[in-house]
């Protein structure tokens, strides 16, 4: 029997992955749910691949076992593919289409993004891919990209928290002077999935 609703958030250091996880985790706690979350700090943060694991329910370990993630929030397409073992069949995948090529690869070594999405679709019928970077720019700041992904994730079926609760958590956990931009990006992400 699965112990928790598992969310795997992945991308590149500096994309606001921990903050997105914190917003979900804080909201879950306020709703009286048990939640554990893992964070990566230190050396791996310097432009390396990073992930945050969120487990809402009875699980105590923060590392999501293979084939367990109910939802993946991928801030970068290559990092989504790298974590394919984490997701269960037909999990919901919210994937940013804007790639960040690793600094040390040769031109052309980065796999084509449409091929990445095709690979992901082999394990899940529920892949929602969109350009979250563009959405963030339109909202007013490139760093609100994480909120665009969060918005889309909140709109996925089975997501255990309501939009209102997440927005309340954003108010609590984001600097107030950027809240408007962040909310716009969040709504954009949410609508792109609902619409």
């Amino acid at each position: 029997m699965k112990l928790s609703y598992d969310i795997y958030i992945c991308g590149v250091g500096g994309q606001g992955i921990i903050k997105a996880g914190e917003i979900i985790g804080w909201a879950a706690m306020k709703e009286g749910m048990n939640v554990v979350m893992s964070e990566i700090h230190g050396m791996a943060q310097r432009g390396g691949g990073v992930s945050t694991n969120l487990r809402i329910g009875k699980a105590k370990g923060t590392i999501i076992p293979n084939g367990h993630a109910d939802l993946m929030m991928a801030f970068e397409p290559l990092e989504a593919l790298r974590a394919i073992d984490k997701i269960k069949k037909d999990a919901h995948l919210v994937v940013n289409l804007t790639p960040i090529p690793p600094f040390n690869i040769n031109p052309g070594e980065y796999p084509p993004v449409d091929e990445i999405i095709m690979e992901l679709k082999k394990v899940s019928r529920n892949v929602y891919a969109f350009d979250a970077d563009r959405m963030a720019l339109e909202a007013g700041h490139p760093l609100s990209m994480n909120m665009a992904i969060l918005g889309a994730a909140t709109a996925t079926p089975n997501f255990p928290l309501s939009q209102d609760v997440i927005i309340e958590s954003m108010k609590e956990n984001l600097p107030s002077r950027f809240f408007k931009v962040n909310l716009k990006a969040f709504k954009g992400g949410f609508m792109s999935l609902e619409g």
Partner: protein
Amino acid sequence: MVGDHMIKILNATEGDEVFLLGNEAAARAAIESGVGVASTYPGTPSSEIGDVLSKIASKVGMYFEFSTNEKVAVEVAAAAAASGVRSFTFMKHVGVNVASDSLVSIGYTGVEAGMVILSADDPSMFSSQNEQDNRHYARFANIPLLEPSNPQEILDFTKYAFNLSEKFKLPVLVRTTTRVSHMRSKVKVGGIQKMRKKGQFKKDPSRFVLVPSTARTMHKKLIKKINKISKIVDKSPYNQIYHANGKYGIITSGGAFNYAHDLVNEKELPISILKLGFTYPLPSGLISQFLEDLEKVFIIEEVDPIIEKDVLSIIGQENLEVDVHGKLDGTFPRIYEYNQDIVGASIGKLIPLKLEKKKALKTHLPERPPTFCPGCPHRATYYSINKALEELEMQVIFSTDIGCYTLGIEKPYNTADYLLSMGSSIGAACGFSKATRQKIVSFIGDSTFFHAGIPPLLNAVHNKHDFLIVILDNGTTAMTGGQPHPGLPFDGMGDEAPAISIESIVEALGINVKVINPMNIKKSIRTFKEALTTPSLNVVIARYPCQLSFKARGKPVRINNNLCNECLECINKLACPAITYDNGIKVDQRYCRGCTVCVQICPEKAIKPKGGSSE
């Protein structure tokens, strides 16, 4: 400025539920326990404890410092505890090695007020040079050991550790691991105990001055204390049994418990679990009672088979008939952190379990190692020194050190050939300079220089060694999140402090020293060439602020693709994450910080400063 989150940690009142990182819970434990003196040297995965205390210590009247190194930190804390003031010191696992010379003696002298040392171990080495298991230190120094498995337990166990320490007048070690220190979850906080800020040191040289005659007496007393404590561990509420009907059991501790718990509950396995939180002295009575009706026991611990060996000795002493499956018989891996998949695969060798298979990917995915940030001065320093060496047609050994600049190990920089520990760049260079005819360049950061670079520098001068030391001074302890060090005009609590000049220290030793701005490539190359061709010990200080800590930002540069002949010097030699190749060189406007190093190195002058969008 104190962040909102810090305020939450500080202002939460008894019974409040806060979403805390393990390290934040440790900081809260210090406040609740009435700690008067706290000290550390930053190191992942312990750094956030100091980050929190540096912001809020003054608000609660606690004294907090970033000490020069972990040995100093432990000594600061020990003297406070000897004077009747509760003290807390915390560091990463390898930091305890630095502290160990004093740490192993504090068991002998003992303490008057509670003293807790938190060691944050790093199984799987997310940010470390090794994955040593610091539970050995409790046995080595003969001091009690607690192993929390989540943020709530970090709070509860650390508070208990202060009481235990005070009761038995012994320092107590708390061991966390990366996954526990960096776990965030709900923590119910307690009330804040009144603090004793100042104590009175009562002289007692027969106890506090360890010379052979006194040490012999104090060692005897230490053994007496630890024997007394071993009588209370069997009844400790921090050791718990989760009963199941069956002949199989698990003994586990710390973060490893979480994976055992999840596997047993998810698969509904009839396996009892003995969860150990108070693990030295080991609760041998409780363990032998747990083993009594079992046929098989799995020992699940990260990293070394410590509990396993103790369990085997209990089984031998008590003549029990239980099969033990752990690391020693090959059931569990000897290295790296565990997770539910690893625990499942290991137990699955003896009990049939349905486990997830890995999905085979057809395409090979390019790795994504960490690297220097756009605008980082280290990238510029490494570019220049490699250019200088190329022009001189010179090969060198790069003896490097610990910090962001260790990332020079990656292509295309290749500026890391030898590294052991904090400060080893200079000490090892002394050895290379005598044992080889090769030319040597040492790299050491500013904070690392203060931490452990000065004694080997004295050695290099006095013993007439011949090499080049490059001190990469970015004005902060960057890798761990930008903590201050003695070279800065403020201290760990944000108060004004005398800044210690690195060049004054170097000059005082009579060494030839040059200070460069590494972002000026031409001058840097010239200075490096001079230093590399001047015999004797030379020091070059490459000084420019960390771009992550100080957030200075220029306008992104612009590429003129008509001038660019795609020589790829910028891609192949500089490898800045803001420069990519996609049908021509492109500058990613999201990342470029306008440092203009690429502008200076482009042979075709195709990169221009202060441009608009390149799209």
